[in-house]
């Protein structure tokens, strides 16, 4: 079941998605963390962030909207209070980072460099880039390239860049990121969505718009993974609506080298381990020993879209 993601060796291809598994501790009563491919922690920034005012979440058909606002205690508190707990386990820890300027990305990567207990960085480039004009870094291939290069130059850790799906041409952004030196790409982050309370005539979320996640977005995520694996040669990690082993297998067959489980953790705290078990069962049933023999085996009958 082991896979290699840009030099990072995972016991199996199932990781947790950032922001949906806290800092690991929250799920430890339900999941033996040692069984996971990796734990990706909630996004961390240089300075603490309070997050958005409530109401922050809303259910949607087969999914949910969230506008947490990247609440986090900041990198210093993370290192002091959160990381030590995770370090007890024999599981790779990937820190999801974000900033509002390229400089912030570089600085947080520096702070996290050479820290024991951290095995990789996942760079979330879906945040609005305030300085450069309010557009997300991840919407522009050139900006995505720059952020990646900057982070790579600041760290010796494997760097995974996480893409936003709210773009017209995901392949172009993926190429930018590959050119910037990323060791892997993860996708997708949430789709921007909205929902309205028709009695009160207000948006359900105080922030008006929020990120859509869950099974509803799986088809979009899978399509983007398919587009990106066809374009770049670095490993791709599939994320979006994965709730069971069959979902994860769709991504692996399509070419993702690993997957992340997000919203599914909320509705079933044991989702990750059940998915791992399910993938193992599928391999046994299909008499395969190595998960790598399955990855990217999608047969499209010569058709390319």
């Amino acid at each position, binding site marked *: 079941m082991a896979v290699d993601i840009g030099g990072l060796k995972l016991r199996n291809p199932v990781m947790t998605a950032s*922001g*949906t*598994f*806290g800092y690991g501790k*929250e*799920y430890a009563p339900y999941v033996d963390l040692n069984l996971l491919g990796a734990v990706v922690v*909630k996004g961390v920034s240089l300075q603490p962030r*309070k*997050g958005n*005012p*409530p*109401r*922050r*979440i*809303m*259910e*949607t*058909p*087969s*999914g*949910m909207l*969230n506008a*947490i606002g990247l*609440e986090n205690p900041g990198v210093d508190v993370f290192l002091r209070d959160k990381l030590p707990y995770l370090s007890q386990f024999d599981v790779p820890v990937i820190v999801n980072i974000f900033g509002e300027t390229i400089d912030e990305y570089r600085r947080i990567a520096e702070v996290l460099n050479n820290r024991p207990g951290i095995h990789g960085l996942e760079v979330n480039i879906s945040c609005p880039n305030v300085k450069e004009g309010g557009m997300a870094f991840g919407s522009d291939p050139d900006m995505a390239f720059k952020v990646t290069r900057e982070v790579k130059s600041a760290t010796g850790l494997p760097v995974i860049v996480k893409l936003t799906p709210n773009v017209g041409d995901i392949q172009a952004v993926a190429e930018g990121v590959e050119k910037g030196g990323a060791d892997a790409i993860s996708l997708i982050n949430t789709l921007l969505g909205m929902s309205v309370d028709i009695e009160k005539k207000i948006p359900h979320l105080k922030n008006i718009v929020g990120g859509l996640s*869950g*099974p509803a977005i799986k088809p979009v995520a899978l399509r983007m993974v398919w587009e990106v694996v066809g374009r770049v040669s670095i490993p791709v990690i599939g994320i979006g609506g994965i709730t069971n082993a069959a979902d994860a297998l769709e991504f692996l067959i399509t070419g993702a080298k690993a997957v992340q489980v997000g*919203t599914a*953790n*909320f*509705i*079933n*705290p044991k989702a990750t381990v059940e998915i791992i078990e399910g993938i193992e069962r599928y391999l046994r049933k299909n008499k395969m020993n190595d998960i790598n023999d399955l990855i990217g085996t999608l047969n499209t009958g010569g058709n390319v879209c």
Partner: protein
Amino acid sequence: MSLKLPGSFKKPIPGQFLMVRIKGRNEPFLGRPFSVYSFAQDGRGVYVEILYKIVGKGTMCLSGQKKGALLEIHGPYGTPFDMDKYPRNVILVSGGIGVAPVTYLASQYRHYLPAAPHLEMVCYHGVTGSRRLLGLERLKEFCSDVFISSDDGTVGYHGSVVEMFEKDVLSYNPEDTMIYACGPRPMLKKLAGLGEVPRFRCQALLEEHMACGLGACLGCAIRVRDGEGRGAYRRVCTDGPVFNIQDIEWDY
């Protein structure tokens, strides 16, 4: 609604809640939090009751479940009520479906503290009208008095439960009295606003929409004053649902 759970299910402490989902469905998608109303166990398993009011899709679907239907239940979750070891006066202030957690609290005070001979437990309970008087039988077993108010005057005191309680509040001694409150946000806000309440220890059980129920998603934030009196967000699911009523910021 009565739930049968595996014997491994931990006994909930009053104030804790369960996340309830209809098995195998993507709609309603998220679990719904419900307070524990009663708990029992025997050789074959654990039995938990919840009391719920139909307000939307989730509770509607729950009410449509046939006897014997399979539900997905997680929990017990949340930081429970602080219970006094040697309680003297316990005052329960509840509105509507808020009766569920205070009833369980009352039952536990009664069952686990027979050693507290001076315990006086009373409940002030508000409803919109007489047709909403549900689940009070058990509460009456546990409390020496249950005072009822109704918004429309069809039963008990005509007015809000907080107004009714306000008339009595001076008769309690803040030193040896604990107030537990649970009900709609406007009711709790009104209670928090009573001039006398800050002199008491007063815990309120709050509600907010939840996704994970266990502290990971940060979706259930409410605003409180932190240790230094500054505004901060806290998770209802793990930092709460029980908060010191003084700490809560009501408007944002």
